[in-house]
């Protein structure tokens, strides 16, 4: 809470916490889904149904952030119902709103950050873990109609995996891929409206088909 800290507001937002989310057991279940997806890039993992009522059409990216955020980390929201979503996350997690270049977690709506993502933290060679995790609100995962089709290989993948996702722009993928310089880079999570999720950590080699 020092002067240089760029989060706004207090430790918690002004609202009331969402009663549908169980801080202990829902966090644990969602984390395990996320761990499964992160350890197996390109594997489609379905998140548990939890009836939170956040602003915005897709509640699943917010379930992920409610599992990951607390007062020790910062986040920012790009696009969508930015103000309401930010307020909802602050209220429910105590996470700090931050500028993009300082954020630990970035939530992108609309399938593109319009080039802003290039300012996200990629870590340093001594501390590559000090990098952003980016969550994309995707239309539909496992379906390449009107979307991107990616071929993935690397740790967590026996040979190769193909993954299609709609609602994420190809330019955005290209921007992220240009930033990946292993072990530096961003770790991506695509989260769609049916609760399906897929992860692409920086260790994954991605080919846009």
């Amino acid at each position, binding site marked *: 809470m020092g002067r240089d800290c760029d989060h706004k507001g207090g430790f918690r937002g002004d609202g009331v916490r969402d009663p549908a989310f*169980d801080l202990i057991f829902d966090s644990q279940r969602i984390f395990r889904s996320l761990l499964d997806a992160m*350890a197996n890039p390109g594997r489609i993992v379905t998140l548990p149904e939890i009836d939170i009522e956040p602003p915005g059409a897709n509640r699943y990216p917010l379930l992920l952030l409610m599992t990951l955020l607390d007062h020790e*980390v910062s986040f920012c929201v790009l696009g969508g119902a930015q103000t309401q979503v930010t307020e909802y996350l602050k209220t429910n997690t105590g996470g700090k709103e931050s500028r993009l270049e300082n954020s*630990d977690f970035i939530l992108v709506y609309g399938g593109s950050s319009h080039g802003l993502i290039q300012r996200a933290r990629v870590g340093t060679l001594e501390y590559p*873990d000090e990098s952003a995790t980016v969550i994309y609100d995707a239309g539909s995962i496992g379906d390449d109609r009107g979307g991107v089709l990616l071929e993935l290989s690397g*740790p967590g993948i026996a040979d190769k995996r193909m993954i299609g996702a709609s609602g994420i722009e190809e330019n955005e993928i290209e921007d992220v891929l240009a930033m990946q310089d292993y072990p530096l880079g961003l770790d991506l999570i695509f989260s769609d409206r049916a609760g399906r999720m897929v992860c692409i950590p920086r260790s994954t080699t991605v080919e846009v088909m």
Partner: protein
Amino acid sequence: MTELSTLAGTDSGALKGYNFAFLDEFTKREIRRKILKAVAIPGYQVPFGSREMPLAKGWGTGGIQITLSIIGRSDVLKVIDQGSDESVNAVNIRNLVSRMTGVETTSDTGSATIIQTRHRIPEEALTEDQIMVFQVPFPEPLRTIEPSEQVTRRMHAEQDYSSMWLHLYEDIVKHGKITIGARYPCLVNGRHLMDPSPIPRWDVPRLHRSPVLHLFCAGREKRIYAVPPHTPVEPLEFEDYKFETEDFSGKVCERCGSSDTFLDEIIDDATGDSRYLCSDTSFCEKRQRGCA
């Protein structure tokens, strides 16, 4: 609905008076975030704020923090120490987790979803639905040759492992072979040098492109690292001095007759004779019953 009082650890978990899985929720969250980064950068040691545990440092405080941070009510836990489910360390850790979570425990490798281990990988083939949690005393493979954390961190940053190669070379010059027993240095995903924890050389090739997620944690040294499934893990070796596992040729387990498992040598004090037994007791029992 979990109340904030539960987060503070004042509400009942499996054992009244404690939070579910002992750790408070903020601690779990930090460890979970660090695990995800560790998985995204295989072999890289992620610093974390290790907590005091009701267990002395050096007795698996790292492994237990990982286990408690990932475990849920539907998990089945197995804990082994040097391959044995029945050693004091394994029994105490298993009892602690069981009392703090109420989860089912087992000694059967096949039915466990989380296997916490000290110094071994079970002999039975593991599946992709399982998670291995390793207790790690020394996470830094370069520590024996470089005492400064600042320097070793820079060496990892620059992928400068020349002094480790020199160390292996000197070993060969002095002894005619590489004499490292447990904690054999491995290159993970072709990038980061990793200490695979004090597993014997026998278990090192079993990490290579294994279908299982491996999580490593050093409580005292405050580091988490990971080997995701299907990740290359290559022990350092020279073209003319290859990495070798322990040689048990001509020896069999006295109990189950196994000749293809890691054996413990037991020396009879009276006669001085050597006997050999499987280190993985659960696997040995299965063989004795003719199940494996």
